């Protein structure tokens, strides 16, 4: 092998000195890399810490060693089995039930009730791990013990704020009074309980029984918490370890969702993995933009160093030698950016809890995320190197003859020249394919999905190409108009606009990069705004906006009468209140196959073993029959099934099912498949039977009505006074809660997409810095010709702001296109959001102008002679 003219050491020394010669320009390059790495390390580091917290505090987060959740009140048989399990063990195993439901509560004398998430615990047992933090700082047992005057409760601070109440006051729940003993600052197992529809109210189980809120069939979940002995008692053989107790629990409660602390919280872990993957890909966009920025800067740098390269080649250096210099430079820049990014990423990680707000049920204990830091650094280096390779290969085209004369003979022109140009760049083209493939690989690794990785690489590349084309078209269009009106424009404006076409400006690439960031943020915002608006608009006057939960059969007539006379209720078609009964039943077989053997239908078996059924002799409001025919005979041995469930269980019209309800097994045929509209009560259940099959059984009723929004509070007040155990869900409140969660989620996404904007701005800064000498010269020539500082400021500001406006336009157009396509897929109408569009445009222009001036620091203060003499 031939000896290289330049050793690695010499190449490194040349590269290092070259880097030091333009600290400003390369400073922005380092920042471009750092932006993406910081975002990625922040997100993945936070996820790493969150997972560590879940693992180390798994018992506290569950409030026990194991938990079993069922969606009905435990039957006598189930309670017996649990008691037997504990007795049999006699080895120190302890258990307690926790009940969770929703209800209405008020604080007299204000009669307006509030929907609350009610939790009933046995304070002597609960929680086994962790503790409920109360204000004032008393124990939960003390707080829920009650006194001679009655029962007591603890409530979330949100409850106190919304009802303008304080500890010591009385709250009314289920027709009984409770003294508010304390504010609940934190409950250990909130994560397992999940987010409720209203603020938390916690009472003792004994008090819950006294309220009568739980009637048979009431909508409530029961969670059994199990605590294993700290040390297995002497003589204990087997049966007290987590695995065997879990088995016993699964046997005792076959329909239950059983979890033990070792799995953490599977739903939460899965959610964490999914969110980390999505957010990582958003960060990868910023990282790729940063890498493109480095590639652009290296390309511009190579062009500026043609003389040096030609000299080195004339002195005997080969292309490989020159490549070494620039490869080492790229690696150095990537490493510096990566390390800076890791440091900034730790800051991003620390900021994320504030960004996530109350989305997170657990306070993550943050530590230095070693794995994520290494992953971020490696990804940043790899991405930078990959994207820089194609431009670096240009060193092969440098001709030593440049030493003697600047102009070398041009190659062939016309179509032949075009092909020759592409052919000369075949290696770069091939490498670009490798880069896209590698991008897919990185996305795969970050999302843990080959499919996601592939789609990301393909779509992102396609988006970049489209944005680049849009940017080039925008620039050409502007030039077309500029050429026609330029002499009629004010001098500074004409000059500023002409500067967009300054040689070496890379305006199109800058526009595409900055436009990508704008597109990301705006598209997320447009989707959020449109979907939420759609959600609000579909709440039409004909549809129910108030729902009643847990109405007993005894209360039905009274409640119907109440709604007939309640002001503001839509009495159209004589149906003030739409009612639907719900009865529970157990499917024994589907299409002749026992339910226990049903596999792979993506439908939880427990939903069949504890199925919610309704009866109706005509399709309920909002349900549309898609296949078959609704029965006419109320005692027909038939049923109708919701479309989604039918698909998952492979049920068709004519399918046979066996169903046990009210102690009797019924063989039924599927008469109809229906689709619920999602806005009426019909959505609540997936199985509807003829009235003759169910109406004699004890049912829980649900109701829906449309009430003038201004009359809802009055209705709630009156209904709560008359029927304190009936829960009212106001759709407006639910929408508000959904909006607040969606706002919070999209804020997180926008926060991270902001890094892409920042990466785009760094590319702009780096591009401006790389043309710094041209700008300096221009500024001093202008000064020499009599221009004041203000005139130069105006000229450059026009250039930067128009660049920002164009980038904003490219991003805005693409964001709107993307949103309209996505919304069409969701069957949601699309309208241009003019205000957001305008803000995006002006905001990008302002940011670009600021960045431009930061990258042009000191230009205004230069003395003409010091620049002109450097020529």
């Amino acid at each position, binding site marked *: 092998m031939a000896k290289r003219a330049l050793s690695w050491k010499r190449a490194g020394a040349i590269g290092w000195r070259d880097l030091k010669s333009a600290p400003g320009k390369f400073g922005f390059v380092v920042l471009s890399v750092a932006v993406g790495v910081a975002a990625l390390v922040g997100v993945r580091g936070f996820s790493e810490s969150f997972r560590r917290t879940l693992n180390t505090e798994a018992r506290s987060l569950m409030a026990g060693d194991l938990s079993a959740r069922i969606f009905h009140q435990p039957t006598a048989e189930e309670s017996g089995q649990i008691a037997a399990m504990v007795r049999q063990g006699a080895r120190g195993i302890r258990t307690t039930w926790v009940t969770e439901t929703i209800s209405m509560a008020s604080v007299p004398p204000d009669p307006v009730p509030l929907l609350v998430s009610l939790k009933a615990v046995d304070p002597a047992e609960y929680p086994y791990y962790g503790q409920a933090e109360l204000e004032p700082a008393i124990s939960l047992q003390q707080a829920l013990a009650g006194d001679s005057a009655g029962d007591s409760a603890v409530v979330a601070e949100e409850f106190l704020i919304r009802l303008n109440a304080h500890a010591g006051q009385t709250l009314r729940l289920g027709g009984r009074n409770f003294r508010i003993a304390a504010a609940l600052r934190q409950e250990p197992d909130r994560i397992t309980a999940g987010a409720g529809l209203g603020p938390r109210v916690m009472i003792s189980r004994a008090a819950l029984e006294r309220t009568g809120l739980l009637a048979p069939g009431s909508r409530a979940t029961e969670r059994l918490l199990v605590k294993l002995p700290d040390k297995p008692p002497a003589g204990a053989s087997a049966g007290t370890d987590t695995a065997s107790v879990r088995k016993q629990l699964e046997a005792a409660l076959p329909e239950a969702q059983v979890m033990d602390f070792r799995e953490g919280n599977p739903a939460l872990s899965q959610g964490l993995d999914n969110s980390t993957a999505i957010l990582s890909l958003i960060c990868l966009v910023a990282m790729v933009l940063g890498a493109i920025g480095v590639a652009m800067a290296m390309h511009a740098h190579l062009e500026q160093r043609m003389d040096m390269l030609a000299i080195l080649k004339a002195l005997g250096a080969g292309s490989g030698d020159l490549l070494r210099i620039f490869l080492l430079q790229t690696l150095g820049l990537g490493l510096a950016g990566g390390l800076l990014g890791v440091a900034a990423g730790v800051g991003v990680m620390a900021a994320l809890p504030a960004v996530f707000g109350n989305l997170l049920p657990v306070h993550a204990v943050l530590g230095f995320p070693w794995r994520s830091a290494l992953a971020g650094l490696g990804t940043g280096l790899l991405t930078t190197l990959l994207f820089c390779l194609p431009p670096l290969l240009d060193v092969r085209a440098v001709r030593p003859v440049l030493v003697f004369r600047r102009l070398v003979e041009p190659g062939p022109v016309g179509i032949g020249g075009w092909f020759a140009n592409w052919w000369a760049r075949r290696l770069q083209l091939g490498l670009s394919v490798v880069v896209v493939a590698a991008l897919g690989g990185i996305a795969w690794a970050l999302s843990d999905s080959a499919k996601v990785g592939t789609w990301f690489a393909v779509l992102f590349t396609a988006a970049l190409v489209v944005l680049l084309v849009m940017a080039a078209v925008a620039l050409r269009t502007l030039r077309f108009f500029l050429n026609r009106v330029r002499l009629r424009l004010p001098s500074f404006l004409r000059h500023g606009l*002409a500067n967009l076409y*300054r040689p070496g400006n890379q305006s199109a690439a800058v526009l595409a990069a900055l436009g990508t960031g704008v597109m990301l943020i705006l598209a997320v915002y447009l989707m959020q705004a449109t979907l939420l608006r759609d959600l609000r608009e579909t709440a039409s006057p004909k549809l129910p906006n108030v729902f009643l939960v847990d109405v007993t059969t005894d209360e039905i007539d009274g409640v119907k009468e109440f709604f007939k006379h309640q002001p503001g209720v839509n009495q159209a078609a004589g149906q003030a209140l739409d009612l639907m009964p719900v009865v529970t039943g157990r499917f024994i077989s589907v299409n002749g196959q026992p339910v226990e053997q049903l596999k792979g239908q993506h439908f939880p078996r427990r939903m069949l073993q504890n199925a919610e059924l309704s009866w109706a002799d005509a399709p309920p409001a909002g349900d549309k029959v898609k296949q078959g025919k609704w029965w006419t005979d109320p005692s027909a041995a038939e049923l109708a099934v919701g479309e989604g469930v039918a698909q998952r269980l492979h049920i068709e019209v004519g399918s046979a099912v066996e169903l046990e309800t009210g102690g009797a097994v019924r063989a039924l045929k599927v008469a109809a498949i229906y689709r619920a509209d999602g806005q009426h009560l019909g959505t609540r259940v997936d199985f509807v039977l003829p009235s003759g099959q169910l109406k004699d059984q004890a049912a829980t009723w649900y109701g829906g009505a449309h009430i003038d929004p201004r009359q809802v509070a009055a209705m709630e007040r009156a209904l709560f006074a008359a029927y304190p155990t009936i829960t009212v869900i106001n759709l407006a409140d639910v929408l508000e809660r959904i909006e607040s969660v969606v706002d919070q989620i999209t804020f997180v996404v926008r926060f991270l997409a902001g890094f892409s904007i920042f990466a785009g701005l760094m590319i702009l800064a780096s591009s401006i810095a790389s043309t710094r000498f041209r700008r300096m010269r221009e500024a001093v*020539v*202008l000064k*020499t010709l009599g221009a004041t*500082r203000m005139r130069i400021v105006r000229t450059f500001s026009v250039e930067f702001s128009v660049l920002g406006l164009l980038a904003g336009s490219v991003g805005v157009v693409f964001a709107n296109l993307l949103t309209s396509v996505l919304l069409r897929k969701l069957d949601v109408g699309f309208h241009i959001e003019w205000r957001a569009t305008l803000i995006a445009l002006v905001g990008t222009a302002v940011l670009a102008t600021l960045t431009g001036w930061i990258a042009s620091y000191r230009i205004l203060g230069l003395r*003409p*002679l010091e620049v*002109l003499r450097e020529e």
Partner: protein
Amino acid sequence: MIEVRDAKKWIQNGARRVEILKGISLVIPAGQFVAIVGASGSGKSTLLGLLAGLDTPSSGEIWLDGVPIHNLAETELAAVRGRKIGFVFQSYQLIATLTALENVLLPFELNLEGSGLKRARRLLDEVGLGERVDHYPVQLSGGEQQRVALARAFVVEPPIVMADEPTGNLDSANGRMVLDLLLERNRRAGTTLVLVTHDPEVASCADRKIVLKDGLIVEDTLPCAMPAVRAGTVAEQSLEQARNG
């Protein structure tokens, strides 16, 4: 008239002070063509920069038509430069993103009111570029670019034109053409012309030749006879006064 009173210029290079001009005094009367010559590093361009207000002296004074420009604020200095001095540089210094016409128009727009379009077109015609007004600098040869720079220097009809090696980057034919245009301006409009050059032939065409060496004037002569049109004028008297100290 330009007057320089004991101007010195030095730069501090670490602990070392490098003296570029060591005390220059001279008077250039209106309408005179002065060639400043000297070896590389003798201080020619620095002196030109001081005369034009592109740089400030470390000590001493520079007066332009009775106005001390060595201590003017930047905005006022820009106004003086814009209205009174036209510049021609060795490397043309055209704005790459503006056409030839826009480059010529630029000083007019920066310093005067109204439209300078007709004047800019006329000047480009005069320098032989009437057909290339919409070309960008990159589309012009070196000689053509320098002729655009000349038109730009003349557009506000300044009383003084300063040129730093204006023929240094040109072949002899183009160099000659540029020099002729400068001389014609000097003779026809009475414009003061201060020209820095290495070229003895160019210097020999000047009314007055100032030779610099190591930051000092070592020779100040009149190589050509003064044109008759200006004989006995105030300018000559001022020159005489300057020579007598």
